[in-house]
């Protein structure tokens, strides 16, 4: 009678291999979904960069032309939501500027039809999180702190993992008064 467990392990090896392959497949499938499908990502993962209805480049506007963030996202200093510029705002400049580019023509099409541009939200917080842009702008937090170096991006992508730890760490670091009280963000 053998007491060593080695032969028994050998017998169990095929089963273990099957389990191992299945596990590898799991990782592969997860990765494949992340790499191949577009449109929507897990709510917190960084790197999410969906195809927008207009190939808008923040690099050209905010980077090269040095347009202030608040020029378009005017709400950010006044309201909880930063807001996106109205189509009228786009048209305001682009009736004169760069009118020949195909992307601009598409913008002007929206304007002529008086239709909203269905931008896809990149930085999306869950509905139970109440993030006031106004307070953060007033406190002098740079937009780039959460949104990353937007002025260098041709295609906007999510930079920071917008999870609770991010908020908490920043609040702790800056010793925000009662900044870790749950009711600060959840109501």
């Amino acid at each position: 009678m053998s007491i060593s467990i080695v032969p028994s392990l050998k017998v169990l090896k095929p089963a273990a291999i099957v389990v191992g392959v299945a596990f590898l497949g799991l990782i592969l499938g997860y990765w494949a979904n992340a790499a191949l499908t577009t449109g929507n990502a897990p709510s917190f993962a960084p790197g999410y960069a969906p195809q927008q209805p207009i190939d808008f480049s923040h690099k050209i506007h905010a980077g090269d032309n040095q347009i202030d963030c608040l020029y378009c996202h005017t709400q950010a200093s006044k309201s909880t939501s930063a807001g996106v510029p109205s189509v009228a705002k786009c048209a305001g400049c682009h009736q004169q500027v760069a009118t020949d580019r195909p992307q601009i023509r598409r913008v002007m099409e929206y304007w002529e039809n008086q239709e909203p541009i269905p931008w896809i939200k990149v930085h999306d917080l869950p509905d139970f999180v109440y993030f006031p842009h106004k307070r953060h702008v007033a406190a002098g937090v740079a937009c780039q702190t959460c949104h990353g170096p937007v002025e260098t991006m041709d295609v906007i992508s999510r930079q920071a993992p917008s999870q609770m730890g991010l908020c908490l760490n920043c609040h702790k670091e800056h010793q925000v008064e009662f900044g870790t009280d749950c009711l600060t963000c959840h109501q």
Partner: protein
Amino acid sequence: MSFMDTLRTRWQEYRKPGYYDEFDYAWTMTIDLDRCTGCGACVTACQAENNIPLVGETELARGREMQWIRIERYWEGEYPNVKLNFIPMLCQHCDAAPCETVCPVSATYHNQDGLNAQVYNRCIGTRSCAVYCPYEVRYFNYYDHEWPSPLDQQLNPDVSVREKGVMEKCTFCIQRIRQAKDTAKDDGRRRVLDGEVQPACVQTCATEAMVFGDRNDPQSQVSQSMNDPRAYHVLEEVNTAPSVVYLKKVEANVST
């Protein structure tokens, strides 16, 4: 600070007498039972403000009402010398709240403003807080509620819509308190002015039976109201130190 240190400090500080008084506000509500007519305006105002779902007749028949503030009624005596007493019952925001100690995930806790907070997205639905609450003012989402279109367009964007399996309760209209604090900050004020913030129920009460404010400010209307000799706590004997103060009903002498 390491985790253990934090824990130790918290442990030592926690709930020593006067712990909550060190902070800016201690939100308090007084309810004058001599004025309450039981009309129910506060109930509907609360439902409108706080996205409280419609339950429906079948679920109500199973006892699954959802009202963050409810009117309780108690009869006294028999016909013809019969009286009816109303008492609005809402979360008492107890300073020594039994619900806070029992929640295994700290979804309900006391914040520095004297509010008994309920964090919906943290709640796992053990419902133990509702068992521990002697005032029975915690309501559980037994299923996902529906707002038939276009009723959903009425939903207040400042208040989370709660999903199934989550406990909910009166927040003293935290969204309004936050709004008021926000305005105060914008105006460069350190404090919210007295009367600047009113929960929906207080705002609508037609007999002005309810007063809301900060009891840390001795000049506030609510502090004055609390000093009324008629002030008392419901279920004082359970020693929860509620932030809702009731003013006793006055019994007039009438001949019968």
